[in-house]
């Protein structure tokens, strides 16, 4: 079951096409990474999902139904460019934003109380936003994004501006929200976050969707079928059967090599062949990192 599907979204601006036939599906309960280089069209897509703008063609389904105004309260959005009313008290501001999302003042108050206790920020209630540090403002904004317990949370570069401690705090909150049944869309180009948190990804480059699917499956696609081996001794007869991609001496007498498997030969065969020649210290498959996937996927598309 997908909480959100976009079908053939096209969005044009005055001089360029921001989104070109973009279709993605976001499974319920997943953490979905929306990746892409700067200016690829991620923000345009997010704005369409948030109904800030409409697509020129294509349509969006939320929970199987065409996206409509009723869905606004089921979505929480943290834009990349953070902003709050500077001259407004933290408490008033959060109450206001929560009410705009459809909560009653009483409901909002109750939920806010628990968040203020959780984040230990009770003393901030009567402070003006301009009196808070940037990191503190980010926390307030995060609370405003998830306060109404949205089914779909869209976070645009959520960790930028947080110190590592607060970043961890936010990460734990995101995982907890997912546990409670929310779906999370991450828009980011920080691959370590994706590596750590995402189950599914979609990659947009130059207005087009280049890749999408479960993270594992995509990594699988990008596997080069190479294995690394760390060993002592000399590799000799292997060269005929296997292509050694790279080899270097890490310490005197201690080597590391990347070896490509040809079709029809499995890793056990390689290992057997290696054991007969050298003393194997470590052996494993080279799994591409998200970073590798990203760089390769983006570079594979020819310059328009």
């Amino acid at each position, binding site marked *: 079951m997908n909480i959100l599907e976009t079908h053939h979204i096209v969005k044009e601006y005055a001089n360029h096409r921001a989104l070109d036939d973009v279709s993605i599906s976001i499974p319920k309960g997943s953490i979905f990474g929306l990746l892409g280089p700067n200016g690829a069209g991620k923000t345009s897509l997010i*704005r369409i999902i*948030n*109904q800030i703008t409409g697509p*020129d063609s294509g349509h969006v389904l939320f929970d199987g139904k065409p996206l409509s105004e009723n869905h606004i309260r089921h979505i929480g*959005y943290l834009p990349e460019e953070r*902003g709050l*009313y500077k001259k407004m008290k933290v408490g008033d501001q959060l109450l206001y*934003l929560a009410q*705009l999302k459809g909560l009653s003042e009483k409901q909002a108050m109750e939920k806010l109380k628990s968040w203020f206790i959780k984040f230990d920020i009770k003393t901030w209630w009567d402070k003006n936003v301009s009196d808070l540090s940037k990191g503190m403002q980010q926390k307030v904004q995060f609370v405003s994004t998830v306060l109404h317990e949205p089914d779909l949370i869209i976070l645009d570069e959520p960790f930028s501006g947080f110190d590592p401690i607060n970043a961890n705090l936010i990460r734990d909150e995101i995982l907890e929200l997912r546990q409670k049944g929310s779906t999370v869309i991450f828009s980011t180009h920080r691959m370590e976050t994706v590596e750590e948190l995402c189950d599914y990804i979609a990659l947009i480059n130059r207005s087009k969707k280049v890749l999408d699917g479960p993270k594992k499956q995509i990594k699988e696609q990008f596997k080069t079928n190479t294995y690394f081996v760390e060993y002592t001794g000399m590799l000799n007869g292997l060269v005929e059967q296997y292509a050694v991609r790279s080899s270097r001496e890490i310490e005197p007498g201690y080597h590391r090599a990347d070896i490509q498997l040809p079709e029809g030969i499995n890793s056990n065969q390689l290992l057997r062949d290696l054991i007969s020649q050298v003393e194997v210290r470590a052996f494993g498959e080279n799994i591409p990192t998200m970073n590798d996937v990203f760089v390769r996927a983006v570079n594979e598309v020819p310059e328009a």
Partner: protein
Amino acid sequence: MRNILLVLKREYMVRVKKKSFLIMTFLAPLLFVGFYATVIWVAVGSVESKNVQVLDQSGLFTGQFQNSKTINFQYLNMSLDSAKASLKATKSTALVYIPENVMDNPKNVKIYAPKNVSLELQSDIEKTIEKQIENIKLTEAGITRRVLEDSRINVDSQTISLSEEGEKSSSSGAATAIGGICAFLIYISVFVYGTQVMRGVTEEKTSRIVEVIISSVKPFQLMMGKIIGVALVGLTQFVLWILLTVALTSAAGAMLGDQFPKDPKQIEQQFNDLNKNMPASALKANSGPQNPVSEVLSAVNSLNLPLIISCFLFYFLGGYLLYSALFGAVGAAVDNDADTQQFMLPITLPIIFSFVFAQFVLRDPDGSLAFWTSIIPFTSPIIMMVRIPFGVPAWQIALSMVLLVLGFMGTTWLAARIYRIGILMYGKKVSYKELAKWVFYRG
């Protein structure tokens, strides 16, 4: 609708809680009352009496200068040089020198003074001399002043306006004053509150909160909430000003009551003194045989006050809505306050023009300029308010109101088109061409 109300509530509360709002609301009536209290106090209070010495070598003017409450004339009999020399010692304000040949050469009259003489005193002296010379010349020609005075007939007209309700006494003076005040208030408030809307929009844009807000609220709802919220702030301020001013004036009146002279003649005298500082139009309202205070009151009462007040509220709101939508669009089109100038001009020009036209319309409230400018929505809020105290045919008011409503619906539509694109547009200097594109941009 719920969203508009939420936005409206925030905009209203934030502004009303501001220190500057509280200060303006409570200080302005104090200043207003204080200003009038000072004016009245100065007028009522003792004016320093002045001594003026007259050196009349022609011998024609002895006893002709009338001593008044503030000026005391003394006649000298000495040479000009010694009179000049003694001027300082006697602490007199001025020395009037009338030469022997004044009849043939009136320009030789001279006023000597240690400091500059006020225009008022100078013209008083000149008039007295002119009148005396005129008398002498008339006598020489065989006409006495009495004959002349009999030939002058004083016409004191009353303006009566004819309407369905029959004749009623009206006062063009009071109408002028009320029309002018209403026009001025609308002019000022459109500017002040329109700018507040514009500032509010740029603030949301520069603080980047706008993206969060419009992921919950339609841009149109945000814009309308803001515009209406600020309008209510304006109305609140007006109502508080009126209440406070009334309260303060009655309090001040009660306190000053004892000090006011009871003799109606004296009051009349003071009002006439005051009127010298007022424009001629206002003067008309007061001059006359009756007690001027009661006449002003009756003149004001002769106007259709409920109509004027309800029209004022309508035109204040209509004019404000028409322009504040445009101000809001300007706020959305630029990145910061400094860039607003280039788009402000086409908006402020019609407002300023209507205020300028208002001066002409005051003189000719039924002319064709008055008619057209009070029908066209961009000028009608100010001009129609100038005309209404003079009486305007109902169909004209109705037409003007309908057009104003259509007008602000039009500007609101236009502004909303620009607004929805503008608030998400950063770091780009926008041209008029660009704005036009936004208006027709779908999505």
